[in-house]
């Protein structure tokens, strides 16, 4: 959709701790279809970064290919971004993070980008526990190539052409939990009260944070019979709300015993999770899998922070990388010089 964004900014827009207004986290005007779920995710990422007072230029946005992967243009215009190749965002993000471990990495992908062509890289990214936030805008179809079923389309979901999908869909959130992702969430593009704190928590988490966001495609997958339309999704949501309290803020709200679980992240931020089921512990992988599977069996889509291991070791720790970003090292640190080379020569005689 093309429209002119108003240039005028309200002088009294609230600012965050860094003095930025939310407009400082804006990107270019979206060219996605009006009503596309992806635009709501862009807005949620923008709001989350504003609320958490992250330096825009210290964030790098990386994506694959698809309508969803275009999203990084539409938020954080002061951040570098990279629209890479279809299904391979994980490797580009890995390389970028190895080069400079000090930036915050946000990856945006689609269900086609991640669950089909990019499945291999996705699994291996989880395995390496790269410190990044990975958001899949999941619409059950290939938007950009005009509505083919994707691998996350549910069994029996009817495409726009009228065909029922004969295959079981891949549940990326379950897969991520199973493969050992250290942070797994699920949400709905239409639920910003849940999505925004979830993204904030993901970005504060040190390690791989995955969020599967149901994000309806209004053009190709929002009709009756589709299981990923706005109305179907709303009807089946089972929402576990959460609050994210950054490390610097004091905790004001009081929570009821039993249904609330608090998790402290490595930087001191705290996440408060509110659940209907008191036996579910989101820091226990088996319990999380059980809750997700049970909801699925009952036709519900469980959303919220599904699993979290706040003490996970990320890639940089696991490979013993030095703390200074590799892209800052110069000749003195990197080049051993002629004396060393002469001794190497000596060993080859």
């Amino acid at each position: 959709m093309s429209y002119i964004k108003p240039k005028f900014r309200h002088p009294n827009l609230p600012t965050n701790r860094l003095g930025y207004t939310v407009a400082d986290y804006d990107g270019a005007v979206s060219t996605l279809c009006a009503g596309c779920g992806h635009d709501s995710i862009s807005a949620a990422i923008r709001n989350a970064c504003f609320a958490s007072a992250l330096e825009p230029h210290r964030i790098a946005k990386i994506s694959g290919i698809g309508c969803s992967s275009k999203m990084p243009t539409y938020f954080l215009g002061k951040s570098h971004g990279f629209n890479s190749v279809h299904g391979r965002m994980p490797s580009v993000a890995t390389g970028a993070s190895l080069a400079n471990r000090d930036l915050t990495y946000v990856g945006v992908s689609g269900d086609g980008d991640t669950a089909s062509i990019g499945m291999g890289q996705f699994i291996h990214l989880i395995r390496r526990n790269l410190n990044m936030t990975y958001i899949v805008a999941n619409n059950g179809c290939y938007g950009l190539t005009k509505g083919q079923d994707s691998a996350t389309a549910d069994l029996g979901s009817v495409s726009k052409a009228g065909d029922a999908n004969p295959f079981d869909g891949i549940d990326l959130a379950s897969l991520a939990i199973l493969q050992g992702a250290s942070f797994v969430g699920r949400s709905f593009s239409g639920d910003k009260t849940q999505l925004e704190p979830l993204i904030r928590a993901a970005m504060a988490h040190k390690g791989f944070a995955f969020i599967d966001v149901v994000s309806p495609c209004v053009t190709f997958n929002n009709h009756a019979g589709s299981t990923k339309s706005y109305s179907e999704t709303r009807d089946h949501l089972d929402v576990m709300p959460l609050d994210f309290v950054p490390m610097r803020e004091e905790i004001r709200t009081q929570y009821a015993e039993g249904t609330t679980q608090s998790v402290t992240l490595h930087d001191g931020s705290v996440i408060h999770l509110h659940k209907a089921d008191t036996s579910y512990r989101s820091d226990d992988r088996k319990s999380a899998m059980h809750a997700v599977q049970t909801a699925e069996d009952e036709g519900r889509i469980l959303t919220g922070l599904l699993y979290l291991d706040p003490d996970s070791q990320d890639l940089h720790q696991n490979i013993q990388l030095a703390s200074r970003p590799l892209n800052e090292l110069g000749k003195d640190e990197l080049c051993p010089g002629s004396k060393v080379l002469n001794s190497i020569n000596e060993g080859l005689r």
Partner: protein
Amino acid sequence: MKQIKGVNDFVVKFANVNGTGSASANHLFAKAIFRMGIPVSPRNIFPSNIQGLPTWYEVRVSSKGYLGRRGGVDMMVCVNPQSMEQDVASVEPGGYFLYDNTKPLAQHLKRGDISYFGVPLTEMCMREFPVPRLQQLLKNMVYVGAMAALLDINFSILKDLLNDQFKGKEKLISSNVHALEMGYQYATETFKCPLPIRLEQGGNVAPHILESEHILMNGNTAAALGAIYGGATVAAWYPITPSTSVVDAFSKYAKRMRIDAGTGKKNFAIVQAEDELAAMGMVVGAGWNGARAFTATSGPGLSLMSEFLGLAYFAEVPVVLINVQRSGPSTGMPTRSQQSDILAGAYASHGDTKQVLLFPATPRECFEMTVQAFDLADRLQTPIIMMSDLDLGMNDWMSPPLEWDDTYEMDRGKVLNAEELDKAETWGRYLDVDGDGICYRTLPGAHPSKGAYFTRGSSKNEMAVYSELGEDYVQNVDRLLRKFDTAKSYVPRPKTHPPIEVKKPKTDLKLGALFFGTSASPSYEAVEILATEGYSINTMRIRAFPFHESLDQFIHDHDVVFVIEQNRDGQMRQLIMNECQIAPSKLTSVLNYSGTPITARAIAGKIRETLSTQPENVVPLHPETA
């Protein structure tokens, strides 16, 4: 029988069974000759197999310092019954054949025109060593000992080498030395030693060889050192023969030289990726983010990296790729050498792409060109593909020592830092400010409000704003072509040598030869052989693509130009035809694509044959000299 004679000039080939420990014994043999100061070039000719299949090790000794394959075998050491028939057949008339005579030689393997040397290797080892594994391993040492006597290898050098190799493991040293001595003694007592082909320390070795203190190293190790010295910090890869040892060596050296002194942590990252797509993706991500990053691969991996190479070309991301060529697909001949990825590299990927290629011909060039590749990648903001091959990468080559200039500074190219961004009036990622097609880039995180841009393929304008306008696209890809033109002045120039004087020229035609990489050494030798026969051939060794203007000139200046390369389709010839303004009929291919490196004799033979049949059809272009 007329026996082959020669001091410091012969070819010995060892026929072994893969996985029996022969490699280190054969290496010991070659290294001892090297230590004697005599030019030697060993080559492993091995199957895609871990254990059981035939494998060969060919050692060329050349007083003149020819390091390419000569062709032909003067002495065969055969300890593999599987291949014995073909091994006997491959010996030159007048040559020598050493074998294990624990079992008598079959009648049909006896030739009247070669000399046989039976050594009861198995029997001696069974008698002498108790453990079966040792019996097998030390058999190799026994034949090396026998060869030392037959060829007059300095025995104390062999002992020194064993001492170095097994430092501190006295038991191993003594059993190995014992095996060597057994072989040595048996040969001296049984045969007339040394043979008419033999070694002589300080003998007739060419003066230019004696000038520098040579080293013996393979191209992959040299490339890995180049990556260390060139400041590479990120290596992402997926194992594939014959490139694997590049990253293995990088890892070995990095663990020694790149550990942060204070913390013991690493100033480098090596990731074994899930496949080559991911490996290249990581290199692209790291290059985009300002680290010097590289990967190493071979043919099939190059195919998989192709999409990312296209993105890196259009998105202008520095990338270094070391492609160690082999023959064809994975079930082709993965352990055999070729130069057959020339076109796949030069035009890697979709759309209008042209990639910068470097062609090293020696380990020293592998080292220097890898360092240079990082500078070029940063300077040109594009992938740089170094085209090595199995022969260069995995075999040991005698080479002048590696040299390092401590005043070297990395060329990080046009990257604006925060200060420079503040000073710049306007900045657009794809604005060609300097007219050389190379624009100024910025790194993520550099400046709070300036220099951020969105990297994409080609749907963008000069300011990096999304655009699908035809004129923006055309402007962009035309600029990329301009950049490729600029690259010509940065990449290594071709090498030429003064022509060899020929007394009685056999032809009036002006002859030229073009070659690159591992075809160079045997080509130079072939040219010298042909000079003695009355053919004067000028040479040019291509070292990079895009081609330098002097290549056009060279072709223009000659009537017949031989393009010597190791693939079926004459890929370099095709690339030249595509890129240069020349008459294709001038270029005659001289090819070898059997998987074993091209030989000087084969090159000379093909050129001789062409010249004896073709000249009438060719009208000299320069009648005044004709």
